[in-house]
C-alpha cells in the first residue's frame, strides 16, 4: 500500500514539485520557530538562582567622584553605614555597573589545565553581595572579610563555569586567569539568570571588591523590606544624592528591570509568532485548495474505485495517505537540512533542543497536512460511483 502510494507520487513528481517545496519551506519555518520556543521554554523552566524581589539598584556614576581612592573609600563606607541604619534596608553591597538585568557586562577568561573558557561574566561585590541577591551556594562558602589579603585571589563561580572548565572538585582548585594573578575557587553557586528569564545563564565568576577596584564600584545594590514605598525611596535618593555630590543618581528596581529585559525577548518572539502563524495558515489554506482541486480532477478514478468495491474509508484514507507521503518527501529533505544544525554546531545550542524541535515540527507538519487533507478526503469518499462514472 505504502509503496504503491510512493510510486503514485513519484510518477507525478513534476506536478507535485511546488507542493513539496511549499511543505519543505513551511517545515523549515516551523523548525526555526520551534527551536526558538523550545530553547526559551527550557531556559524559562530553569530556576532563577537569585531573588530579585525588593532589590533596588542605585547607579551613583563614577565621574565627579573624588579621584583619591582613600577618600572615595571613606565616602562609600559612610554612605553604606548611613543606608544600613535605615530600618527598611536589610543589606547593602557595592558592585560594578553589570547589575542583573542591566545592559552592561564585564567579561573575563578562565583556564584550568587545558580548558580555556572565554566570555565569563565577572561580578565584583562585597561580602554582602550574595546575601543581597539571594545567591544559593552549592558547595564551599561565600566571601568573608579576611579574603581580601591572601595569596591567591578567591573567587566563587557558578555551575556552568564548573561544567565548562570540567573540574571535578572545584572548591579549593587554583585557576589561571589570563593577564591576572592566580585565582582560587572558594565556592560554587547556582546559576543566576541575570540576563532575563528566557536566556540561558553563561559561565560566571564572582570576586570580592578591594581598595584597588573602588573606582569601578559605581552601583549600590539594596535589599529592602517589602514595605519600602516611593516615599521611602525618595528619602534614600536624597541621602545618596547628597553624599555622592554632583554625579547623576538613578534608583531602579530589579523586578522592573527584569520585566523590561524579558520584553526584549518576548516582543520579537510574539511578532515572529504572528508572522509565522500567518505564513502557516496561508500554507494550510493553499494546501487545502490544491488537494480539493486534485480530488475534483480525479472524480473518475475515485468513482471507479468505489464501483469495484472500495469502502468510503479506504478512499479517503488513500487521499490522506497520498498527502502524507507528499509531506514525507518534504520532511526527508527538510530533516536533512535541519540535522546539520546540531551536527555542525551552527548556533551555540545544545543538541537536544534541535532534536526536540525537529520532532515537534515533524509532528506539526503531519498534523497540518492531515487536517488539510481530511475534509477533501471525506468529500472524495462521498462521491457516488454512478454519478462520477456517468460524467466521464
Amino acid at each position: 500500500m505504502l509503496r504503491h502510494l510512493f510510486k503514485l507520487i513519484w510518477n507525478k513528481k513534476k506536478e507535485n514539485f511546488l507542493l513539496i517545496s511549499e511543505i519543505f519551506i513551511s517545515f523549515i519555518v516551523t523548525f526555526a520557530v520551534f527551536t526558538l520556543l523550545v530553547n526559551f521554554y527550557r531556559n524559562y523552566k530553569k530556576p532563577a538562582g537569585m531573588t530579585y524581589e525588593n532589590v533596588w539598584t542605585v547607579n551613583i556614576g563614577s565621574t565627579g567622584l573624588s579621584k583619591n581612592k582613600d577618600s572615595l573609600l571613606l565616602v562609600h563606607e559612610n554612605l553604606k553605614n548611613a543606608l544600613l541604619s535605615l530600618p527598611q534596608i536589610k543589606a547593602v553591597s557595592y558592585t560594578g555597573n553589570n547589575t542583573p538585568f542591566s545592559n552592561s557586562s564585564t567579561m573575563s577568561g578562565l583556564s584550568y589545565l587545558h580548558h580555556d573558557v572565554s566570555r565569563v561574566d565577572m561580578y565584583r561585590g562585597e561580602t554582602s553581595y550574595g546575601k543581597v541577591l539571594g545567591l544559593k551556594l552549592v558547595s564551599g562558602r561565600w566571601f568573608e572579610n579576611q579574603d581580601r589579603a591572601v595569596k591567591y585571589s578567591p573567587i566563587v563561580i557558578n555551575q556552568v563555569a564548573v561544567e565548562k572548565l570540567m573540574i571535578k572538585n572545584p572548591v579549593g582548585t587554583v585557576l589561571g586567569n589570563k593577564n591576572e594573578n592566580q585565582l582560587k575557587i572558594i565556592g560554587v553557586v547556582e546559576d543566576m539568570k541575570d540576563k532575563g528569564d528566557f536566556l540561558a545563564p553563561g559561565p560566571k565568576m564572582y570576586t570580592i571588591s578591594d581598595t584597588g577596584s573602588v573606582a569601578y564600584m559605581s552601583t549600590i545594590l539594596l535589599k529592602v523590606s517589602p514595605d519600602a514605598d516611593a516615599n521611602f525611596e525618595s528619602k534614600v535618593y536624597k541621602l545618596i544624592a547628597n553624599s555622592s555630590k554632583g554625579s547623576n543618581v538613578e534608583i531602579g528596581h530589579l523586578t522592573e528591570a527584569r520585566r523590561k529585559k524579558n520584553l526584549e525577548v518576548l516582543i520579537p518572539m510574539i511578532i515572529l509568532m504572528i508572522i509565522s502563524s500567518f505564513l502557516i495558515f496561508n500554507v494550510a489554506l493553499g494546501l487545502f485548495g490544491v488537494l480539493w482541486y486534485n480530488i475534483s480532477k480525479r472524480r473518475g478514478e475515485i468513482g471507479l474505485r468505489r464501483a469495484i468495491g472500495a469502502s468510503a474509508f479506504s478512499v479517503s484514507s488513500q487521499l490522506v495517505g497520498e498527502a502524507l507521503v507528499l509531506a514525507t518527501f518534504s520532511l526527508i529533505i527538510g530533516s536533512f537540512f535541519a540535522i546539520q544544525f546540531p551536527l555542525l554546531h551552527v548556533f551555540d545550542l545544545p543538541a537536544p533542543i534541535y532534536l526536540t524541535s525537529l520532532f515537534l515540527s515533524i509532528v506539526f507538519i503531519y498534523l497540518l497536512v492531515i487536517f488539510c487533507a481530511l475534509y477533501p478526503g471525506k468529500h472524495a469518499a462521498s462521491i457516488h460511483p454512478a454519478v462520477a462514472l456517468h460524467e466521464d
Partner: protein
Amino acid sequence: MLKNYFKIAIAVLKRRKFFTFISLFGISFTLTILIVLTSFLDHLLSPSYPDINRDRELYINKMIFRSTKNDYFNGGSPTLYFYQHYVSTLKTPYKLAIYTEAENTNAYQNNKKIVFEQKYTNIAYWEVYQFQFIEGKPYNQQELKNADHVVVISEDARDNYFGKNVLATGKYLEANDIKYRVTGVVKTAPYLDFYCYADLYLPYTLSKQDLKTRNLMGGFSATMLADSKTDLPKIKAEYLEMVKKLPIDKTEDNMNVINSYADYYLEGYSRSLSSEPDNGLSTLYFYFGLFIFFFMLLPTINLVNINISRIMERSSEIGVRKAFGASSKTLTYQFIVENLILTFLGGVLGIVLSSIVIYLINSAEIVPNLKMHINLTVLFYGLLACLIFGLLSGVYPAWRMSKLNVVTALKANN
C-alpha cells in the same frame, strides 16, 4: 482588450469563491506585513519631527582607538574638546549640535516616582533640531555660560510632573535632587530617535563630565547640519582628513590608529555590522533583502500553486482559444493581467488591513510615543511589492498553461 480581461477576471473570481478567498487572504496579509514593516522603517529612518533636516545632516557618535599590532580596541563617543578644537577646523560651513546620550534620573513627587531621561546639549542643538516649543523657549548662551540650573522639558515630562496641560514655564522641577527652572516645553520627540529623545534637556555646562579634559574620547555625540546636501561629501572628506591628523597618545597600549566618521543617519547604525573602514550599508541591505525574499517566498509559492490549479481548471477554455488561433503569448499576457488584477484587489485590501494594524499598534503604545503612519512612500513601496508579487506568482502558471497542448486541453474538459 484590457476591459475584456478585466471582465473575465471578475467572472473567474466570482466563480470559485473559496479559491478567490485564499488568494486574496494570502496577498492582503503578506502585503499588510510588508506595509507595516516599511512604515516602521519609514518611521525610523525618514526625516520627521524634530529632525526634519536629516538629508542635510551628518552624525558623529563614535571614536575608536585601535592597534594594528595587538587586538587592543577602545570605543566611545568623543569629547567636547575634540569638537571645539578639531571639528571646528573644518572649512565647509555647518552648524554643530553637541549633546550627550540620554541617561536616566529620578524625580519624586507626591509619593510617586518618575523616571526621566536627560540629555545635556549646547545652544546650536535647538537650531539644528527643529523642536516645536509648546510654551517658553530654549536656554540661551548666557544661561549656558553661567551654568544656570535651567531645563527644557518634553510635553510628556510636563504632563507627568506638573499635570496635564498645566503651564510649566518659570516653574521649578526637581530631579536628581537638583531644582531646575523650566524655560520651555517641547513637543515630545519620537522614542526611537536616540539623538533627540529625552524628557529633560539641560545645558552641557551642568554635565558631570570633565569638560576641561584634553582627551579625545568621552561623552558627547554631535550632529552636523550643512547648508546644502551637496556639501555633505565634502564635509565627510574633510572630517576624515582631520581624523587622520589627530595626535595619537603613544602611552596607551600600542594604540596607533584613531577611527571616527561623520556618518549619514543609516550609516551610523550599519557601521557596527561591518569592520572598518566599510560602512556596513551593503551588509544591511543584503540581510534586509534576504529577509524580504524568504518572507515572500512562501506566500508566492502558495499563490503559484493555487494559480496553477485555477488555470488548469480552465483548460477547456484555453484549448478552445488556442484552437481558434490565440498565440501562447496572448494567453500568457491575459493570465498575467488577470493575476495582476487579483493582486491589485488584494493590495487594496492589504492597505485597508495595514491601516487598521498600524492604528492598533499606535494606540497599543508598545513603544511609547510611536506614531507610525502610511505615507506616500510607504504606499508606493506597498504597490510596488504588490506588482512584484503579482508577477512572481503569475508568470510561472501562465507559462505552464501556455505550453498546454490543444488536444489534451480540449479533452480534459471537466
